[in-house]
Structures are given as C-alpha cells and as structure tokens.
C-alpha cells in the first residue's frame, strides 16, 4: 500500500509542477504581440494584463484560478471562458476521449489477432499497419472524413473524432499486447501448467491474462496522452467546441491566462487517469497488493 501511495503521490506532483512551470514561463514573457510592439500599449491595458495574471503579486500564480472560482471570465471578454464553460468543455473532451479509448481497445484486439496469425501476409501487415498508423498525423484522416460528418450532427462529428484519434494508440496497444502475451506464453509456468494437463484456454485465462494486465495498465497513461494530443487536431477539424479547440484558440490568440489554466487542467486530467490506473492495478495485480503488506 505505501508503494501505491508513493505512485499516486508522484502522479499528483506533476500537477503543481506544470501549473507553476507554465505560469512562470508565461509571466516571464514580455507583454505584447506583433502589432502591439509597433505602438505604445496603453498603461491601463498593461495593468489589466498584469492583474489578469497576478504578475508581481505574492501568490500571483493563483490569480487566474481565483477568477475562475469567482465565476469571472478568464481572458478577453469575447474569447474568454468562465469556470462553468471550462468544465463543460473538459467533459466534452473527456467524453470523446473515453469513446476513443474504447475504440482503441477494439483496434488493439483486432491488431493483436492479426499479428498472432502465421504467414507472410500477416507478417507484412504486422509491419505496414503500425507504419501507416504511426506515420499519419491525426488531421489527415480527420480532414478526409470532415466533409461527410462535420455538418451532420447527431454526435457523428464526436464519433468521427474518436475514430481518427483512436487508430494510432490502438495499434500501439495491440503491438504491446501481442508482445506481452508472447513473452508470457514462452515462460516456464505456462509449459508446466500445460504439461500438468490444464486446458490451453484455462492457462490463458487464469495465468497469462493476469500477468499481461499490469503491462497493459502501464501503457494506459501514454495512450491517454496520445488521445488528448490527437484531440487538439480532431476537435479543430470537426469543429467540436471542446477543450482541445479552446487550447489551440487560446494559444493562437495569445490568451495567456487561459493557456496557463488549460495546461494545468491537462496535467490534472492525465494525473486523474494515472490515479484510476493505480486503483485498477490494486485490484488486478496481486503483486501490487503484496508489495504493501509487511
């Protein structure tokens, strides 16, 4: 149990590090954009910018959060966002991400079945499919699909976004799954169990799967990261007004307070995924439970 708490603590430590790091980076930047540098900025605008970010104040890095909790709008009034809107956007992205995770698991199983088949065709496909999946930026399939689904409504854009962002992480999971299963099947305990007369299905279910699951759980974090990274492009192409879209627009329009808050929210989201993984690990991995016992 202490080991689990240590792992959870490590996940959570990422959030304040990212919050502080992104704030310090943004606060250290000189004020202004290309157009602004050509003219003198009005002092009240400079003061408003500094107030918005809490620059020069003790605990100033908490200022954007303070504004959000008070229900004030973060950033300029037209493109800004309130705490409530931010939550709605996050839940939209989480919904698309969860759907994408389910699809990624489906791709993973399909690819694992393909890789486990013998024959030169399966071998060539086993090399080509990852190359195509990993060599394809998310925005290309998104753009190919966009003309057919962007205006369709009925959750079709969300489904299409989940479909395009799930392909690469799904193939990654599939490759990992096949390698982990192959490694386990070659171990002595499997030969022993089979030699003692246990049916192959039972050996797989009772011995191999519990040993493969921890390796899969380890990959959930990077897969969640990949899904979130993919959501930036997919949400933009399909016109989904969720969190990825908010982030890209904030960066393009130099809405610094939103960039700081959104970066921290991303880190918190990934930390939450990490926490869920640790909890699931406690249930499925007996070694984790045993490590905590005296």
């Amino acid at each position, binding site marked *: 149990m202490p080991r689990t708490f240590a792992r959870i603590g*490590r996940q959570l*430590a*990422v959030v304040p*590090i*990212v919050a502080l*790091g*992104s704030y310090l*980076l*943004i606060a250290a*930047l*000189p*004020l*202004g*954009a*290309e157009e*602004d*540098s050509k003219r003198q900025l009005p002092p009240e605008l400079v003061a408003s910018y500094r107030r918005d970010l809490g620059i020069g104040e003790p605990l100033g890095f908490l200022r954007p959060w303070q504004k959000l909790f008070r229900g004030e709008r973060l950033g300029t009034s037209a493109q800004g966002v309130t705490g409530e809107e931010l939550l709605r956007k996050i839940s939209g992205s989480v919904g698309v991400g969860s759907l994408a995770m389910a699809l990624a698991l489906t791709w993973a199983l399909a690819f694992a079945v393909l890789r486990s088949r013998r024959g030169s065709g399966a071998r060539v496909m086993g*090399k*080509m499919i*990852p*190359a*195509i999946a*990993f*060599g*394809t*930026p*998310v*925005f*290309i399939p998104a*753009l*190919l699909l*966009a*003309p057919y689904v962007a205006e369709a409504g009925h959750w079709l854009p969300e489904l299409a976004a989940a479909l395009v962002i799930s392909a690469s992480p799904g193939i990654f999971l599939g490759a990992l799954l096949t390698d982990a299963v192959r490694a386990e099947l070659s171990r002595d305990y499997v030969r022993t169990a089979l030699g003692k007369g246990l049916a192959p299905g039972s050996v797989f279910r009772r011995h191999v799967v519990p040993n493969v699951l921890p390796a899969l759980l380890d990959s959930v*974090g990077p897969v969640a*990261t*990949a899904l*979130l*990274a993919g959501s*930036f*492009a997919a949400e*933009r*192409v399909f016109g989904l007004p969720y969190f990825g879209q908010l*982030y*890209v627009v904030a*960066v*393009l329009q*130099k809405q610094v307070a939103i*960039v700081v808050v959104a*970066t921290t929210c*991303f*880190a918190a989201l*990934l*930390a939450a995924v*990490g926490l869920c993984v640790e909890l699931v690990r406690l249930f499925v991995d007996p070694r984790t439970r045993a490590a905590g016992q005296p």
Partner: protein
Amino acid sequence: MKASRDNLRRSALAGLGILLGLWALSFATSAVWPAALGRCPFGYDVLRPDSTVCELAIGGLWVSLSIGIAAGAVATLFGLLVAMAARAAGGVLEEGSIRLADAFFALPDVLILMVLQFAAQTLADVHPALKVAPAPLMIASLAAVGWSGPARMFRNRFATLEAQDFIAASKALGAGRPFLLRRHLWPAMRGYLLAILVARIPAAILAESTVSFFGIAKVEPMSLGRYLGTSYSSLLYPSGARIVVPAWILLVLVVLGATLSAQGAALDRE
C-alpha cells in the same frame, strides 16, 4: 534463432537504406537537380500553382528529415547527459530529475511545443534582436519536448547495467567511473542510444506537422510537415487528395524506415 536475427539485420539495413535513400533523393532533387521534379504525375499544387506536388513533397522531405535527425540527436544527447548526471548524483537529485522528466513526459508533445513556440514568438515580437530562425527554433523546441523519454530510458538502462555482476567485478578490481563508462557501459548503450535516436525522428516530424497545421510554426525552407499542415484546405477541393497523399506516403515510408532501423539497433543491444 540465427535465421530470425539475420532477417532482423536485413530489415534494419533496409530501414536505414530507406531513410538514407529518401534523404539523398530529396536533397539531390531539390538542391542539386530541381528540374527533375518539374514533371510530376500528381500535377501542380492547388494553393501554390507555380510548384508541382512532387517539388513540394519531395523537396520538403530532406528539411523534415534534417530537422527530425537534429532534434532527435539533441534530445537523445540531452537525455543521456541528464541520465548520466542523475546516476552520478544519486539520491534525492536522481529522484528529482526523474520526476521532472516524468512531468514533461506526462504532457502531450504538441501541447508543450505550442507553448514553447508561443513563448519564443512573443519574445521575438517584442525584442526582434532575440528572434531565432524558424528551423533552429523548431529543432530547439522539439529537443526541449523530446528529452524526457530518453532520459528516463537511459537512467533505467544505466541502473540495470550497473547492477550486473561484471560491473561489480570491475568495480572490485578498482575500475573508476570513467573507465566503467568507456569500457563497459558505453558499448552496451550504443545500440540502445541509436534505437532511441532513430525512433525520435518520425515523432519529431509528426509533431512539427501538427504544430504547422495549427499555423503556429512556419519552418523555411518548407518542410514536409509544414507542407502537410498547410495543404489541408486542398482536401476540400475535388481530387484534392492527390496533393496530400504523396506527402503522406513519404511520411509513412520515413516511419517504416525508422522502425526497421530501430529494430536493428535493438538487435545490436542484445
């Protein structure tokens, strides 16, 4: 077993051949013999009607590969230095540096890349003297994004190697850290380092293309990533796929070459 190793070795050579061949073809046809790409089966680009699709796609490939290799090399070397420093320091410093790498690794590449490009561009807007050319800025940003994964992997690899009996025996015979590094650790790390470096190339190219797609980075001369990123609107035209598909195929070939080469480097590690 030997046949399988031979197959892997052949695949690795094929992968390296693909990467070098693509770079040489791209560089030769864009810098040495540009007229070669004047006639292109895919026709002229919709958005840049004075250039053919081949000129833009193949011409941008060497830029992307060069950026990918440079960024991959800087990130890998920085990761190696961090791992070596962390192992040498040990204790809290080692734990702290790995946690920092974790914090970087936990966030999507594209997100950090956008923040870094945003910061550098804002700085350049206000202080033109601090303006960095887009290609070096992209290399630096990609390296700043990509060091954390290699740092973690190198640190774990060092820890595994240092726990081996032959290292303990060497230490018992009086070997110092520089000797251990040169005689025992470096030969065992070489292949691993190469595998990680090669694996970073497609990741860097993909990250660059995604950031270009958002209109945040403007690498000159135009890279394959930026070409892909800025050509998306051509997909809205009828037969617009002919603009994007050649660049996409080149990207897939780069990934295939890098994957095969990395497998060969991993074989060397064994």
